[in-house]
């Protein structure tokens, strides 16, 4: 066991267990905190994959912005313990779980019983240069300049729209 594989299995186990806890927790605040755990372990996995910039963004955007917003709304609406919902476990849950499990099993077979060359055993040597700020910046302002600019419109629309909907009186 190298340090890398040790880190992988630790982070993977942490990510899966916090994700399961997130779905099972009845209190929305606890769910949100479990979710933050998942986000952190994913950031660690991104580092293993040489995606440094994305690992930092993962923490800054998901934990720093999105989850803080979620927690803020939960507390604003006062969805503490008393607002726990009586969750329904019905047909939808059964069907959903079976489908999702089938999906994982199917992928498992595809991945482990295939001699597919596309599913490589080791990382491409070029990967180390991809996820740096330099590598990402070069791509974003080169080939991907149009999507990058369009994202600014998308964020503007989201900001304007969110303010309009959430403010008290027009």
């Amino acid at each position, binding site marked *: 066991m190298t340090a890398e594989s040790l880190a992988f299995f630790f982070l993977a186990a942490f990510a899966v267990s916090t994700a399961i806890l997130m779905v099972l927790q009845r209190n929305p605040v606890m769910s949100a905190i479990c979710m933050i755990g998942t986000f952190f372990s994913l950031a660690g996995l991104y580092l293993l994959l040489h995606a440094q910039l994305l690992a930092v963004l993962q923490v800054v955007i998901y934990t720093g912005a999105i989850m803080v917003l979620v927690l803020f709304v939960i507390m604003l609406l006062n969805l503490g313990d008393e607002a726990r919902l009586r969750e329904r476990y019905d047909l939808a849950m059964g069907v959903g779980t079976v489908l999702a499990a089938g999906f994982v099993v199917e992928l498992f077979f*595809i991945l482990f019983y295939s001699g597919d060359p*596309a599913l490589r055993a080791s990382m491409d040597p070029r990967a180390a240069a991809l996820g740096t700020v330099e590598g990402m910046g070069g791509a974003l302002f080169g*080939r991907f300049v149009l*999507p990058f600019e*369009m994202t600014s419109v*998308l964020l*503007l629309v989201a900001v304007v729209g969110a303010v*309009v909907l959430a403010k008290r009186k*027009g």
Partner: protein
Amino acid sequence: MASHMLKDAALFLPEIALTVTILAAIVADLIFRRVRAVVPGIVLAGLIATGFLVLGQQGSSVAIFSSMIAVDAFAVYFKLVILLAAVVVVVFSFGSAELQTGGRKLGEYYALLAAAVLGMMLMAGANNLLMMYLALELSSISSYLLSGYTREAADSSEASLKYVIYGALSSGLMLYGISILYGLTGSLDLATINHIVPVVISAGGPPLYGLLIAGILTLAGFGYKISAVPFHFWAPDVYEGAPITITAFLAVASKAGGFAMLIRFLKVTFFDATGVMAAAGTWEAVRGLRWVDLVAILSVLSMTVGNLTAIWQNNLKRLLAYSSIAHAGYMLMGVAVLNDEGIAAVMLYFVIYLFMNLGAFYAVMLIADKTGSEDIDDYKGLGSRAPFLAVALAIFLISLSGLPPTAGFIGKLYLFAALINKGWIWLAIVGALNSVIALYYYVRVIRNMFLRTDEQQSAPLSLSGMQMTMVLALLVPTLLFGLYFGPLVQLAQASVRIFGAP
């Protein structure tokens, strides 16, 4: 690099003009708080200017910004359909009583509408899966906000919440499909994927199933946008709960963007350039099942579920929602054909669908503004209270059902002709049976308007000159294209060229 980008930007002028319009609308809204007509005026002018810039792109067939966006006849056609629908909806909105309730400020409404149009125009041209995803999200996020805009009305914000949950779920599924496609082919560019897909297919084995999963998940994203069954669950609630102007906009423009994207995706990505499957046009997903067969299944489901559920509806807005799901099914028949004839038939149908569907929604909006009801039972005796409006609505509904001498008949005729020429006889029969079912619920509305009398003997409804003109502007093409359709057909047939497709 920089000069290259400037050259590309010249071909991107319509979208740039529309972006400027969005910004101008937001700023103008802050400055001219009290003058109601300023922001809609700016947006209307911006949309029309964008339309002229799009017209200037006729004849070009290139992909710009590293193949992110294609500028071709196909994209131009769909952009014009989307812009025309948007112009009509802006005019509707300006006269809508529903939007004005409670002294609501509408500045941001028009800005968001323009942003949704920008997203849909990008959908029409997107030539890269990343760009498709972003364009879809831009139009979706604007649509979530617009359908919840009348937020004091409980059903509006509920509709919006359902829309955002279903929308986010299906875009998540689509993204998973895109990621598998990327893993198998190493690219998100449609043409590059097309070159590598045959390698994956000929290798066979498990990656083939990966491709199948990826394709189906990606189709889920498109299916949600065009509200095809089984990805339609959001549509009835959103159509009923949203302000009716937005319902009309979603039913026409959003669908146009989704269809443009779906056709380009199927045509460029899964087109078999080697001619092995020449008869089918697309590759087999698995042995014996072609990609177009999946589209045909979606088509049958959408038509049948849409029509059979529409029969039971009492709210006319909701009835039109199910009817629009059924229409997505009819148009998917043309997509299943996927040759030039089939695509031209879909494009022709879209123009006709624009006039008849917007017309029907406008008539429903005018009646709801006056009577306060969208219930079909309240349409009794409308033939005598508002003869002009009732006759107009009847014609729009007859056109939607596809009876001659309206434009709807011509649209269906070309769709069925394309199907039969390609040998999809069973699909044509299912489509014809569905048209008969559809006739039943449309006629029910017409019967209520003309053959049933209103017990309360309500006062006649009067229309302003502006409203009358607007109804006529939608009514005349609905009738005219039923009799004189030559030029429209030629335009559609001339616009089927897709960049990168053989």
